[in-house]
Every structure is written in C-alpha cells, then in structure tokens.
C-alpha cells in the first residue's frame, strides 16, 4: 500500500499543516535542489516546486520533485498550463505519481511574455480549473480525459491557488467554489499582508460553506527589505501590502530590515491562526529558504509531525 500524502494525513488529523517553496535552478545541477532541501528538511510537511515561474526557463518541476524524493522529502508538484497540452499534462501526472509524488498544484502560470522566451507559444490548451478536473478524473475514475481507461490510476492530493486580493474581488469566492467543485483538495493562497482584506475573503468563503469543503493554507512571505516591499506593491499583481507595513519597513534601519520582515511574518501567522477555516500556512521565502526554519520555530509550529508507515 502506498504511503498517503503527508499533507492529507495532517489535514485528516485536524492539525495545522506547513508547506514551503523551492525554486529549481536555471541550470542542470541537482546540487542546487539538494542544498535547498537541507535547509527545509523537517521545517515543512511538503515542499512546493515551482514550474518555470515567471515563464523563465528552469529545471523542470517534475525532475526537481524527483530529486527531492530521492533526498527523502515530500514535494508538491506545481504544474502550469502555459507550456503543455493535455496530452503532455496527463502524461506528466502519470509520471509524477509513478515517481512517488503525492501532491500536485494546478495553476495557469504567468504569461510567456514575462519571461526569457517571450516568442514562445503559450499553450493554455486547458485552463487551471479544467486541469484540476482532469487530474481528479484520472485519480477517481481511472481514465484519461475523454474516458480511455488507465492501467493504474495516479494517487495525488490535488491543490489549487487562490488569490483573495486580485480583481474582481467579489468574484474570487465564485472562482474558489469552482476549483473545489472541479476537485481541489487543498488551496494555497497568495501571500497575505492585508489581514483585513483577507478576513473579508475568508468570511465570503465561509458563508458559501467553502472552508468546510477544502483545506485552505494561507500564504506568507517574509519581507527582506523596504525596497522589496515597495517593489512587490508596485509591480506584482495580486499582492496587497498596506502602506503602514511599508512605512514600518522603511523606518527600520537597513541592517535590521530582514529581522523586521520576519517579525511581521510571525505577527501575520499569529493573526491567521485565529481565523476560522485556516488549516495551515504556505511559506514562500523565495531565495531565502533559511528564513523558513526560523519562522516555523518562532511561530510554534515545530516539530513537524512524522507518521509511521501505513
């Protein structure tokens, strides 16, 4: 009998889960993954591996997940629909399950014009919601899309993203409902800084009964500097950083800004813990994986549970 997804086990128990993120290198060196793996070992229940994020060519998420498995960690395979058609996507899903990957996160992906291959064709044969449906069909009905039988179904815990801060705000809970109906088991949100707005979104989700139907992990990202905060506010869509936080970072001396960023992150986690329906945290400390360890420790989230073989 295969081991169940660690995330799924924790949710079944009713505990808070922790996931972190790992970006593959812009090169063929597996050491880059192993180094990050060591920084994250024991700090999170599962580790997301991004899929050519920002449309920049990196080692494939599938391969990097395989490397994490060989290092004894549990990955979450991120799959964007920008680069592959439904044949390739389903093929990768089968391969992922065969390799022992137990979690998959289905995303649209940033538009190809953002990255370093802007002349590439953006595929988008399926959208993220259709992909969730396809994976669920493969897992629960044992067929590919369209009904052809599989010799063995993939076993995957299905995730999707939610952005409580993107336009149009009132529609976001509808989209969340669609993802759940399509088959999402867990949701990771975009990183939270504006807690009032996030609570509003959670309220809308709760009113629709969605918080009972899916496991929501709130995203958090520690700010490294006031410049990073200003950059994110200005340039990255779907990120809402209140002015008071920016001011707070600006008023901190430069050599202490990283510490302050972690403090803000911890305060955010504390408030998030009190929101009904939050089932855990997704810590995205991009190119700052060392911070994850400090954050989970100070947030009282260590040690991460380990389960016996089932």
């Amino acid at each position: 009998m295969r081991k169940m997804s660690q995330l799924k086990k924790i949710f079944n128990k009713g505990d808070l889960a922790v996931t972190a993120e790992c970006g593959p290198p812009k090169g063929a060196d597996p050491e880059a993954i192993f180094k990050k793996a060591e920084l994250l070992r024991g700090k999170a229940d599962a580790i997301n591996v991004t899929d050519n994020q920002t449309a920049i060519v990196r080692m494939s998420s599938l391969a990097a997940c395989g490397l994490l498995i060989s290092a004894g960690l549990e990955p979450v395979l991120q799959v964007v629909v920008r680069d592959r058609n439904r044949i390739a996507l389903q093929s990768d899903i089968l391969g992922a399950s065969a390799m022992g990957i137990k979690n998959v996160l289905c995303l649209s992906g940033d538009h190809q014009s953002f990255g370093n291959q802007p002349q590439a064709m953006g595929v988008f044969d399926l959208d993220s919601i259709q992909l969730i449906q396809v994976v669920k069909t493969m897992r629960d009905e044992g067929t590919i899309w369209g009904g052809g039988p599989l010799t063995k179904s993939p076993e995957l815990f299905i995730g999707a993203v939610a952005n409580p801060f993107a336009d149009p705000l009132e529609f976001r809970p509808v989209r969340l409902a669609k993802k759940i109906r399509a088959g999402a088991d867990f949701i990771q949100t975009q990183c939270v800084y504006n807690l009032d707005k996030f609570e509003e979104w959670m309220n809308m989700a709760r009113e629709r009964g969605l918080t009972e139907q899916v496991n929501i992990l709130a995203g958090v990202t520690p700010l490294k500097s006031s410049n990073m905060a200003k950059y994110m506010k200005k340039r990255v869509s779907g990120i809402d950083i209140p002015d008071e936080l920016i001011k707070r970072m600006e008023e901190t001396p430069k050599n202490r800004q990283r510490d302050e960023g972690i403090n803000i992150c911890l305060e955010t986690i504390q408030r998030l813990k009190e929101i009904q329906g939050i089932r855990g945290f997704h810590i995205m400390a991009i190119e700052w994986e060392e911070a994850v360890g400090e954050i989970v420790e100070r947030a009282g989230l260590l040690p991460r549970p380990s389960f016996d073989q089932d």
Partner: protein
Amino acid sequence: MITAEQKPIDKIREMIAPYKRILALGCGSCVAECAAGGEKETAMLASTLRMAAKLDGRDILIHEKTVDRQCVKDFILPLDDIIDQYDAVLSLGCGAGVQAVAEIFSAVPIIPALNTEFIGETRDQGYWVENCVGCGDCVLYDFGGICPLTRCAKHLLNGPCGGSRDGKCEVDPEVPCAWQLIIERLSKFNALDRLEKIYQPKDWSMKQGLGPRNIIREDQQR
C-alpha cells in the same frame, strides 16, 4: 474584417528589386477598411516606390489597380487581360488575397506588401482591435458577447487568473482583463451565475483542422 499593416518600405523595396514592370494590386474590402491596402493606399505605395526607384537610379514601371475583393476568384479573373504586361504583382491584399491571386496567375511572381494580422473590428477611427480567433465553435453567448479565447491573453474559459491589476491584463496595462469585462457584462444581464459552471476543455480540433480548413456548400455551387 481581416486587418493588415504595410510591411516596412525597405523590405518591400528589397522584394521588388528583381522586377521592372510591377502591378500594384489593391483590395477594396478589409484592407481598405483598415487603411492598409485600399485604392488610396495602393496609389500611395506605388507613388512612393516610383520615387524610391528614381533615387536608386532604377527605371521601373509600377501601375496601380484595385479590385473589389482580392480573395474571390471571379473578381480576379478579369486581370487576365492585363497580367502579361507585368513581371511581378505587388499585392496589397491580405494573405488570403495574395494566395488567391497566386493561385490564378501562377506564372507571375507575387509579392505581399502587407503583413496580415487578425480578425477584428474598427473600434474607433484609426483603431482596430482583434476580437475573434476563428475557433470554429462560437461560444460568445455564454460569455455575454465577449470572447475569452481572443481577449484573454491566456484564453481561459474559467477565468479570471490572479494576475489582473485594476481590471487590466497582467500582460499589458492598456488591455482590459477580458474576464473583468465578461463579469461586468453578465452582471448587467443578471446572468452572472452562468459563470458558476465549469466550462469544459475546448475542442481545438475545430480550429486546427486537418490541414487548412474548408467549407463546401453544394447549394452554392454552379
């Protein structure tokens, strides 16, 4: 209509360089509407190329003629009377027109003066915008008359993605998020609940076809 834009003049000069007697052939339909290849534009291009030839010290002949539609065989056939006078045709038709002419007058080299771009509308004077990708299975009713395949940069059928900013697409702050528009439009009709259903994956085979797509209507044949 089909929209197009004139190729850079240097490129056109390069392509016509081997020829001495050229017919600049315009089209009175789509490319006239988008001011790229109609009678006026054909006259302007011909005049410009004649002046350019003088600057190059070349002695060439460029005549102008515009047909109603360059993509209809019956409208092109009459050119048979004059085609022998020329050693090349510079077509200001869209890609369909260029190829239709090439098909009929296969012995004459044909040079495209335009780059064909998209199916679109004249949204305002001097402003043309793409609004159809010719998917072969129109779903405009479901989306309040706004095509997500064309106007959403990721052609999502269950949009929006999380990337829009102030109602504009993540790809270009000038471009409205198609899903924002769809949601607003359907709200006007009180039909927003239409978007609660999960739209199934598109049958792209109706767009891709098995090679170039075609339509055959026997009731329209001779």
